[in-house]
């Protein structure tokens, strides 16, 4: 017997209405606007001109380059540190929940507020970081005010921020590994390193693939942390500009929403592509 309980639509109505107006409509609208030019109240069709402008704009390429570099450097380093820390917490120490609670703190706190603290710590003259570096006779770069250092500073802050989520998810995955695997390995006299590479890592692969995707997507959307570090700017002389910064700038400040939406479509496609790659990767892993 097939039932069709129409009342379901009543319960779904609020969700469907809000989703239609504030998720589906804006995607279509962004897509349409990327082919229009003029100000927000006076848009007219202009074909592909926004995309042409975009691909010729050196600032756009700088934003894409910065964003891609940020993703390619901060994500693997952050993930590697997270694996190390999660593995140590899981296998070596007592007080697991104490360390978990500690490492997760940055996830719930405001990026803007912490960015202010980091700006202070990174200060070239009286910042704590450079004081420590000088004490160790290491070079003390001008983290915030030197355009060539902007991206490095953003990456360091990005890694610091990303650990929280990664560690907690990895801890969850580590707890799910069947403890019998380790018991058997112990019986055969496996060393700690062998257990890590032969049991832990293979078992973590689905989680790592998931985290890799989430981190890369997150990295492509980086905005708030840059805003916080450089006090509302994208670094000195826009040196640390990112994709979302570019979109915000074109949309709100320069007043060319068409170009902003063309950039949004490009960013959206990049993110979709990464998600697609992850699906493929997961499928491959599932088959093995």
């Amino acid at each position, binding site marked *: 017997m097939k*039932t*069709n*309980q*129409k009342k*379901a*639509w009543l*319960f*779904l109505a*609020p*969700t*469907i209405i*809000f*989703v239609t107006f*504030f*998720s589906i*409509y*804006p995607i279509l*609208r*962004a897509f349409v606007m990327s082919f229009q030019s003029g100000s927000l109240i006076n848009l007219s069709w202009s074909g592909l001109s926004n995309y042409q402008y975009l691909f010729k704009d050196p600032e756009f390429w700088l934003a894409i380059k910065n964003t891609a570099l940020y993703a390619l450097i901060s994500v693997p380093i952050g993930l590697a*540190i997270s694996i*190390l*820390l999660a593995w*140590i917490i899981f296998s*070596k*120490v007592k007080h697991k*929940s104490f360390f978990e*609670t*500690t*490492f*997760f*703190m940055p996830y*719930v*706190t*405001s990026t*803007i507020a*912490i960015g*202010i*603290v980091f700006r*202070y710590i990174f200060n070239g*003259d*009286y910042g704590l970081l450079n004081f420590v570096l000088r004490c160790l006779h290491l070079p003390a770069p001008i983290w915030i005010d030197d355009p060539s250092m902007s991206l490095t500073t953003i990456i360091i802050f990005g890694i610091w921020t990303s*650990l*929280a*989520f990664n560690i*907690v*998810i990895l801890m969850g995955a580590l707890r799910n590994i069947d403890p019998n695997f380790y018991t058997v390995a112990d019986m055969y006299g496996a060393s700690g390193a062998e257990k890590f590479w032969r049991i832990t890592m293979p078992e973590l692969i689905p989680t790592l693939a*998931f985290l890799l995707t989430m981190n890369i997507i997150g990295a*492509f959307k980086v*905005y*708030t942390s840059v*805003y916080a570090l450089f*006090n509302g700017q994208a670094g000195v002389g826009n040196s640390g500009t990112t994709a*979302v910064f570019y979109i915000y700038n074109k*949309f709100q400040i320069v007043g060319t*929403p068409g170009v*902003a*939406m063309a950039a949004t479509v490009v960013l*959206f496609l990049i*993110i979709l592509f990464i*998600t697609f790659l992850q699906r493929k990767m997961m499928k491959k892993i599932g088959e093995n």
Partner: protein
Amino acid sequence: MKRIRWGVVLGYIILVIFAIITVFPFIYMILGGLMSFQETTSIPPTIIPKHFEWGNYAKVFAQAPFARYFFNTFVTASITTIVSLFNSLLGAFAMVNLQFKGKRFIQIILLSLLMVPGEAIIFTNYNTIARMGLLNTYIGLVLPFLTSIFYMYYLQSYFGSISSTIYKAAMIDGASDWEYIWKILVPMSKGGLFTVGLLSFISGWNSFLWPLLVTNEDSMRLLNNGLSAFASDAGSETQLQLAAATLTVLPILILYLIFRKQIIRGVVRNDLKG
């Protein structure tokens, strides 16, 4: 005789170093907010101020309407949480317990929308809100966030673990769907609802880009926007910036320390399924 296990010792050393790197910025923020101006710029840097300058906080409140920011943030985060929880609850109930034509279609649409990054729609949403004349209003601040596919999906997996025979039994006993939701479903999934509520409130509290777009009047700003504006205005007065940052972070940090177990468990569950 007990051998010292060097692996464990090394493990502790690495953990402690990283734990300090993680926690230090928070401690330094709180301490820095209590320093005098000279102490914030001294070399070598001051870690613990000689006198706690509580007056910094008075100055922060005098220079910017932080009380107002608190109120605005609390109101918007609460409304968003309550309404989106309510909507997700109803939606998740329908998707789990009811059979209807088009269910699969709705599920597919919602799941694909989960992949859409918020940054891709936030600017066109701004345009919608602006045309509705809702800039600088509470409604404008909350409207696009009154439903959450993410939380609905989360609740679906939660409700799915409650046996459907309970629903059938309730129906045979003559309960209406509405009664089932409030008398059985909600009490049985209190933990899940509470966690979703917490996560939603925290993300509402920390929201930045959306309120930056839809508010430009000082009286309508939220905490994080007020804080970043204050940080630019206060210029070199680092101790005031840090005091203001402390004000923003502390309520959530306290909430986090109280409910750490629920929050961490909630995040792990959320994202492995998502």
